[in-house]
């Protein structure tokens, strides 16, 4: 039996996904038994030019983590697509944009300006002509180039064709093992692979895995998790702490809830839902207790109640803004009447 070849690459992400792959512990030995690592910058010393030299389809499976946020991310994603038989969108950033995806609230110019002149650690806070990274720099030793930062963060499947998805921030070892098991069975015994586009996770939501006790889903006041003593036995949402569990795909084992923290939605929505944020927003607004005097309440009263959710975007789209229906912030030509809250 010839070994398969796998690759792992890191786009706009934090590196956690790479570590997650190492976290499978001794199982990695099993991987080594069936697979050679064709490309994995954090673990093996294959250069990009080596990949460019590989024949098309040479790599059996690429696990691509991180979002597509600059020209290099995009180039490598496209390159690996060409060189790989299967591409797995690995982790929340690749699948939904993840935390970097929140940059879609702004644009590249503003991001760079903030990072290079406004952060407390920047020594350019008071500089008259601050310096910013340039795509091309000419030096006497030659021309240097760094990737172009894009205005819009994209998911992997918005740039290349993707075969499988494995969400999670990062994907749990359980899911990784599940996928490796599938591949191993395929390689060793010719077991069929899942259909293209399959999610390597559950298609139920997190409540399916969560062991907390549920009574009546009704909310009167919303609290931040740090503001209240959270009862570890009771449903988080029923305690007024916004938990995205009901709108989030299961598969992570409800780890955050085990740690007495609410779900923030890294696994993304189920197959039936287009927009995780919109879906959870609707659910939360719906379970606010209807009050006796609601018929006499003004629109302002209602706004006041709903304004308990301080940051709807950050709350409901923490991991999924680039995959949302709207995808990124827009700019009205005419001035927006009220000052935007972010």
């Amino acid at each position, binding site marked *: 039996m010839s070994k398969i070849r796998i690759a792992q690459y890191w786009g706009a992400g934090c590196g956690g996904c790479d570590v997650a792959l190492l976290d499978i512990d001794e199982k990695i030995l099993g991987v080594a038994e069936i697979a050679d690592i064709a490309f994995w910058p954090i673990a093996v010393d294959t250069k990009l030019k080596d990949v460019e030299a590989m024949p098309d389809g040479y790599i059996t499976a690429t696990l691509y983590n991180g979002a597509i946020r600059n020209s290099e991310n995009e180039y490598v994603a496209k390159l690996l697509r060409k060189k790989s038989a299967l591409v797995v969108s690995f982790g929340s950033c690749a699948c939904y944009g993840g935390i970097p995806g929140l940059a879609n*609230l702004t644009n590249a110019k503003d991001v760079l300006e903030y990072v290079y002149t406004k952060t407390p650690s920047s020594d350019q806070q008071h500089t008259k002509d601050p310096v910013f990274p340039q795509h091309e720099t000419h030096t006497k030793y030659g021309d240097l180039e760094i990737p172009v930062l894009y205005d819009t963060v994209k998911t992997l499947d918005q740039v290349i064709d993707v075969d499988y998805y494995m969400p999670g921030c990062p994907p749990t070892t359980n899911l990784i093992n599940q996928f490796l098991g599938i591949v191993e069975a395929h390689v060793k015994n010719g077991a069929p692979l899942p259909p293209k586009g399959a999610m390597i996770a559950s298609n139920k939501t997190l409540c399916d895995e969560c062991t907390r006790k549920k009574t009546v889903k009704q909310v009167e006041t919303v609290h931040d998790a740090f503001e209240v003593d959270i009862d570890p036995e009771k449903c988080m949402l029923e305690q007024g702490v916004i938990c995205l569990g009901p709108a989030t795909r299961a598969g992570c084992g409800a780890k955050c809830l085990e740690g007495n923290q609410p779900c923030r939605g890294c696994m993304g929505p189920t197959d039936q*839902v*287009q*927009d995780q*944020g*919109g*879906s959870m*927003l*609707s659910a*939360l*607004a*719906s379970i*606010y207790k*209807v009050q006796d005097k*609601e*018929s*006499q*309440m003004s*629109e302002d009263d*209602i*706004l006041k*109640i*709903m*304004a308990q*959710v301080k*940051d*709807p*975007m950050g709350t*409901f789209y923490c991991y999924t803004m680039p995959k*949302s*229906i*709207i*995808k990124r*912030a*827009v*700019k*009205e*030509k*005419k001035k*927006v*009447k*009220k000052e*935007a*809250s*972010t």
Partner: protein
Amino acid sequence: MSQVQVTQTEAKGEGEWEPNIIAFCCNWCSYAGADLAGVSRLQMPTNFKVIRTMCSARVDPEFVLRAFSKGADGVLVLGCHPADCHYIGGNYRTRRRVALLRMLLEQYGFDPDRLRLEWVSASEGAKFQKTIKEFTETIRELGPNPLKEEQEEKKH
């Protein structure tokens, strides 16, 4: 998703933008109010298309987001007056969702006034007319959906 070919309706003059508005109407109050406007021959701009749901509370925030993503310049959600909902309290859910949705749209950079919730009863043909007239004007003032504008700019 539908597989309809994009069939351009006849151009209303090159470059001349006209507001394109989706109005979600509940079957029992606002859709009936819209019908009454018709029966009373109350005239109003053609810029809106009504989508009927049984209750305004069937209007999933995703419908509104979808409409904006497909280029709607404005979205109206019309339901029964408070305490007058055919389904007892559906409209209260709608009101909360719309409040939250307007906050979200603002974060997306949209003028929240592109989404409006109004109560129109079955006997308020005139209010339906007024709402359509006013909202069309609001949208005309705001200009085209910026998302659609940006997509158009990218194409050129």
